[in-house]
């Protein structure tokens, strides 16, 4: 669902208001960059994706139509772009991404360190998932898309989207458990 804030900004963007674009950019840039990085596994490819998506958003000013949600629209554009750049780079993501950190404030430096290690382990495990499972997991948890929106975007059934998510969770659970055991 489009929030009233997003609906207003889209309307203003279609009137050529660059401030509307800036507000949309400020609101979504960090989340979309994190999604791009988790999908592609490379900062340079993630930068390409993010730049392309938001510059195209500016290009579409005057003619932008968003039906579901702005988050969904941007995520869909990002996903398509990520697939393109990965295909051009001649690879899918199989290596872990080390750039991601944890954004929540921690009560103490030690707690922050523990949380970062856990996030790093999660990121490493994410990189080992098949691409479709990784996409569903990231779109649901990072881009905050409902499974129905993910299914529409990936052109799969709702059941398959749930299935891929379940497999992703099982594999992450298993790999994160191995990480803990190896660390003992």
């Amino acid at each position, binding site marked *: 669902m489009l929030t009233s804030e997003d609906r207003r900004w889209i309307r203003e963007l279609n009137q050529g208001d660059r401030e509307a674009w800036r507000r949309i950019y400020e609101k979504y840039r960090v989340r979309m960059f994190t999604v791009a990085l988790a999908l592609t596994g490379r900062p340079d490819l993630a930068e390409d994706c993010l*730049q392309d998506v938001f510059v195209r958003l500016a290009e579409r000013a005057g003619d932008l139509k968003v039906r579901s949600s702005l988050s969904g629209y941007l995520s869909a554009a990002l996903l398509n772009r990520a697939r393109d750049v990965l295909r051009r780079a001649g690879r899918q993501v199989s290596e872990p991404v080390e750039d991601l950190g944890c954004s929540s404030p921690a009560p103490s430096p030690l707690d922050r360190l523990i949380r970062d290690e856990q996030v790093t382990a999660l990121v490493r495990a994410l990189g080992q998932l098949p691409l479709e499972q990784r996409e569903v997991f990231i779109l649901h948890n990072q881009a905050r898309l409902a499974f129905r929106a993910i299914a529409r975007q990936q052109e799969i059934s709702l059941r398959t989207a749930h299935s891929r998510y379940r497999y992703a969770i099982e594999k992450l659970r298993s790999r994160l458990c191995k990480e803990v055991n190896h660390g003992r």
Partner: protein
Amino acid sequence: MDAEQERIERLAQQMSVELPPALDERIQREADAQFETFKQPACPSWAQRIGRIIMKSHIVRIAAVFAVIAAVAFFHQTGDVAWALEESIAALSHYRAVLLEGQESERTWSEDGSKQRRPSKYWAVANADQTGIEKFRAEAAGALILTTDGRKTWRYDPDANVVYVENRPYTASDMWWGAQFFEQMQTWRDKGIFTQWNVTYSRDAATARERAVLTCAMPDGPPSPRSLEITFDVESKLPISLKQWENPTWEGPADLVIEKITYYETLSDDLFEMEIPEGAQVIEE
């Protein structure tokens, strides 16, 4: 949902990374450039306005509704994919034994230089954790040519009528021809080892059952370039046939054709022991 899943999801939701300042500046600069050339969309032309008036006509509106329904139905069929490889992986995990029936190109060539196909059958039983083949039996042109019961291996040369016996198992494959095989395919696809990964759908003319056909290529091996076509039954999710070419472009007749795949929970041990053919020489190695 259990606590571990919640923890993983919470961690994922908290992942965040700031943009490098240079990227931030670059994006804003390029977006600003777009706004320099922004043009407000023109008012609809007379033709467009007349088109909208015509659409208000009752008859045209009904036709438009049917067109929309047809379009939605079309997209529903093409978008509502009925098969996913993960479902096949899950379905395969229930079976520990398999029979593959088909044809394999002989290594010798006929007089005109073309490869000859011979009918082949392969039975295989997985080891306990389904990570490899424990028992294996191969028949070619109706004759048993190799069998292993996991401890001993018999090879038969029908031309010489000789049976070679080894006191060790034969490794037919370094992975099980089931869920593990397709999980490995997924991993290799994600690493770019498998390319041109494509799925199409069809309906079997004889049974009317829906099929999903996966084609993919391995231009650099391992161990050598090849291309595959694997057909899955959409309802059961199980692979039902396979073709493999020893080139990366599906060129020419396939070198291996598995026309029928039968799945079992297990197979009798008797199947994997060799009955020595009459008059055959037995050589212990």
